[in-house]
């Protein structure tokens, strides 16, 4: 059922995102033309055309990034908690699968937006010189990683990269689930559901900041931070990176879990579609 939910979710969102991606790539080609010829020309009309093409590119990039974010919120709210929710929430599908479907498709569009925007910048800047510079920069990055993980211990570099990759995904997922949790709580109120969702969102952030502050004070006062720093000093650089990443991964995983449990609890037990 999750696969089917995702299929229809991709249909619903793809009809917005795919044309936008096309637009980004086309305007990137236009912007490339602008920077290479139009803006350099002696003709004012051609200069103006160049500025317009470049502006169109910037707007298209911004639209793609904003749309991936806006769709993440809009699809959850409109498809599950407004009129379409009457159909969606009476499908023989658990709320867990609804949340997973929305989350996975949102993550997919974020990733696709990232790649399309990266590709667009390649197109914008592409010429032979740029290709050389890019290869040089990539080699530089590899060199830096080699220095960070000496003695030919490449496995650490690969694991650390994977850890960072998973951390980024978990961090974005936590951001999505935080919005889902806020909307799931907000819809359970009898009135002013949107306002309540916004207030709950800020409320969650406020609570997280308070807890973060309290945690920081406890760690500081108890001397735990001193012990941790001392402990990390005894470790080699690659192991320190793994330990720090493990902490970050655990923290974002717990955040995901909390927001997921809040979302599914409210959708299952406090659904209030009026």
């Amino acid at each position: 059922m999750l696969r089917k939910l995702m299929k229809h979710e991709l249909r619903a969102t793809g009809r917005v995102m795919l044309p936008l991606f096309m637009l980004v790539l086309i305007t990137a080609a236009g912007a490339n033309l602008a920077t290479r010829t139009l803006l350099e020309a002696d003709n004012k009309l051609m200069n103006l055309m160049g500025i317009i093409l470049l502006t169109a590119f910037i707007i298209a990039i911004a639209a793609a990034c904003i749309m991936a974010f806006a769709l993440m919120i809009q699809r959850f709210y409109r498809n599950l908690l407004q009129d379409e929710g009457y159909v969606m929430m009476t499908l023989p599908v658990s709320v867990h699968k609804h949340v997973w479907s929305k989350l996975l498709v949102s993550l997919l569009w974020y990733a696709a937006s990232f790649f399309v925007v990266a590709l667009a910048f390649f197109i914008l800047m592409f010429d032979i010189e740029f290709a050389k510079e890019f290869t040089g920069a990539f080699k530089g990055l590899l060199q830096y990683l080699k220095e960070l993980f000496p003695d030919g211990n490449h496995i650490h570099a690969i694991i650390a990269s994977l850890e960072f990759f998973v951390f980024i995904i978990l961090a974005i997922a936590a951001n999505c689930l935080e919005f889902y949790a806020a909307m799931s709580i907000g819809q359970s109120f009898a009135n002013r559901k949107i306002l309540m969702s916004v207030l709950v969102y800020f409320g969650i952030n406020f609570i997280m900041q308070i807890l973060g502050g309290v945690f920081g004070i406890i760690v500081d006062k108890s001397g735990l931070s001193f012990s941790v720093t001392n402990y990390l000093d005894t470790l080699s650089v690659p192991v320190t990176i793994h330990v720090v990443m493990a902490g970050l991964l655990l923290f974002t995983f717990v955040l995901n879990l909390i927001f997921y449990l809040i979302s599914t609890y409210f959708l299952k037990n406090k659904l209030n579609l009026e």
Partner: protein
Amino acid sequence: MEILTCNKLSKNFGKCTALDGVDLSLAGGKIVGLLGPNGSGKTTLIKLANGLLTPNSGSICICGEAPDVNSHKLVSYLPERTSIPLWMTAQQLMDFYEDFFEDFHREAAERMLEHLGISLKQRIKQMSKGTREKVQLIMVMSRKARLYLLDEPIGGVDPATRDYILSTIIGNYEPEATVLISTHLISDVEKILDEVVFIDKGRIVLQSTVDAIREERGMSVDALFREVFRC
């Protein structure tokens, strides 16, 4: 077996009581009218049966189970408003229903859409309000469900469309299934009803067969409704 049972079911919206200790039991193989004036609690009861609202107290069961994934397999629900995704074409909507409901009969849906001259490639958004309601009803009635919950299926459409909708309901429901039709347009639906439930201010005030009303009280359901709910 009882298809729908409510036990002291209550639902409040803030200080407003929408349902107040409703006890109700519906058996299979009947077309039942859930009749009451506006704001009497009809839609709330149907939403509770679909799990779209959660009760404040009491319980509601579909074939012995609380509204959940399993009950959704048994219930075919027509909401009071157009809730099908408007961006879809009729074809995509059928794909959607076919994917999620094993009891969805695509051929039946295609036949009814074709009968109405609705293009499968046309987006729901481009259809008139009446056509959208017909498409939604066709999807709902193309399922072979145990319980059909139809919330105001004839509200807001012209008399010719009302006739079409009612004939679609009669022509497509499973004989052993129960059809619960919520409406305040009594005279239009009276001819297809086996049983009626009158609801007022969140309480059930009458549950009777249509034959009993005619024989024992010597009046039509419409006339009895006007008498019971006289302002």
